[in-house]
């Protein structure tokens, strides 16, 4: 029996590589004008309009609690669709799409604990959609 492979889209936050499962509506886009939302979690950067859809922009660094002072030169996000809503993860740089046969679970982490290893044995944590939505908790 052959193991069922999962497909992930790689992206970079700083120098770290992360992965998002391939879903409907996945697309790397670049945007300029973002509408800010008052009195909302810092994990939500704002809203953009793209291809007839309202996309909620998630601050991935806040989400992953990464303290990097370096600001993005350009605003780039990786979009995905969940429950009819469109979200965009702010990323620094896009990466390849690859299929992974085996994933692991980091017991020390409560959220975003799944990961896989690349060919050069580097750990790449997977940003699970449920974990993301549970963290931002915007549309209940």
């Amino acid at each position, binding site marked *: 029996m052959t193991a069922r492979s999962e*497909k992930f*889209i790689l992206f970079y936050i700083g120098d770290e590589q992360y992965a998002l499962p*391939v879903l*409907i509506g*996945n*697309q*790397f*886009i*670049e945007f300029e004008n973002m509408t800010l939302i008052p009195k909302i979690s810092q994990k939500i950067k704002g809203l953009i309009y793209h291809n007839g859809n309202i996309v909620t922009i998630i601050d991935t660094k806040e989400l992953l609690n990464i303290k990097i002072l370096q600001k993005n030169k*350009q605003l780039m996000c990786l979009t995905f669709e969940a429950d009819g809503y469109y979200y965009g993860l702010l990323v620094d740089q*896009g*990466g*390849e*799409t*690859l*299929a992974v046969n085996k994933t692991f679970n980091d017991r020390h982490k409560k959220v975003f604990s799944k990961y896989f290893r690349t060919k050069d044995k580097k750990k790449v944590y997977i940003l699970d959609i449920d974990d993301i939505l549970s963290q931002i908790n915007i549309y209940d």
Partner: protein
Amino acid sequence: MKVFETKIYLRFLSWFIAVAFLPLAALFLSIYLFNSALLQSVLIESRDTVLFAIFISLALILLLSLIATKLLSKSIIKPIKISVWELSKVVGDLFKTVQNLSAISQNNGELSDSLLRSSQAQKTGLKTGSKAVFDMVNSLNQVAQKTKLAATKTRNVDKLASDSGDRSKEALDSLVVVRQLLTENQKLSHALDGYAEDVKNISSRVVILAETAKFLSLNVSIEASKTSFGNDFSDLVSQIRELNIISEQAAESIGTLVANMQRQIEQSGDFSKHQAQETDKTIKVVSQNIHFLSKIAANMLQISQNVQAIDQETQETRQDSEDIGTMIKKLDTEAKSLVGHVDTVTQTINQQVAIIRSLNKSSTALNAVTTTLNDLVGEK
């Protein structure tokens, strides 16, 4: 005058008595020698008469001699007295004259000594003056030589200043040309700046193109992973990835090229601007230099003229010094001649002294004569 006090009177008287007695004695002697008997007989017979006659004769002779002496002495003593008086007067005058001559001679001697000393001092002074004039002439010759040298050098400096002025003008012209070239260069830099801006725009478009290609590549990859297509689509994805890589490299190269070009253009512009400023400064400095050189040339001309005037004055002064030297030589000759004259004057004074001594002797002799004559005529 007493008769018996006069020696000549007595001599005349003695002589007359002798003259009167000698014939009488001769008479008696001849009578006695030839006829002594007669003499004896006369003396015996008429002794008293003979004695009386003799006495009368003697008395008469004495009286006549007295009268003759008196008459003769009067005729002789008077001119002698006059002569003695005149001689006394002449002796007095002669004595005074001798004294005066002695005083004059002494003065002349002192004058001669003074003249001798003066002429010797003059001679020494003239020697010193001659030496000083010789030194002065030598110094003036040296001054003249140095002045000529200075005049030559001044002329050279003047020529150099003129040449420098011409060269500075040429340099100024060249700098003006350089300034024009720099202006052209600045215009070119501006034009290049415009082109660089255009290239920058093109580069930004290429960057956008690369970005688009990048997103296209990423998203095509995602889409490819969602559905399973054939090998052709995989090739397409690969080509798009390749396009992405190439466009990224191209965008990066163009960006680098544009940045370098812009930097070089800016540097060139800055350099041109700086060079233009420096050229302006250099033009200003060269203009000032030309101005200064003109002034220096004018001053050097003035100095050259002054040096020439000094040279001329030095030559004239040298001529004057030579004239002074000639005059000093003449004066030296004159001083030598004066020394000779002084010697002559000294000799004359010596002769004069000898004459005065002789005159003194003559005066003494005259005094003795006068005394003798006075003694003779009985005068004191």
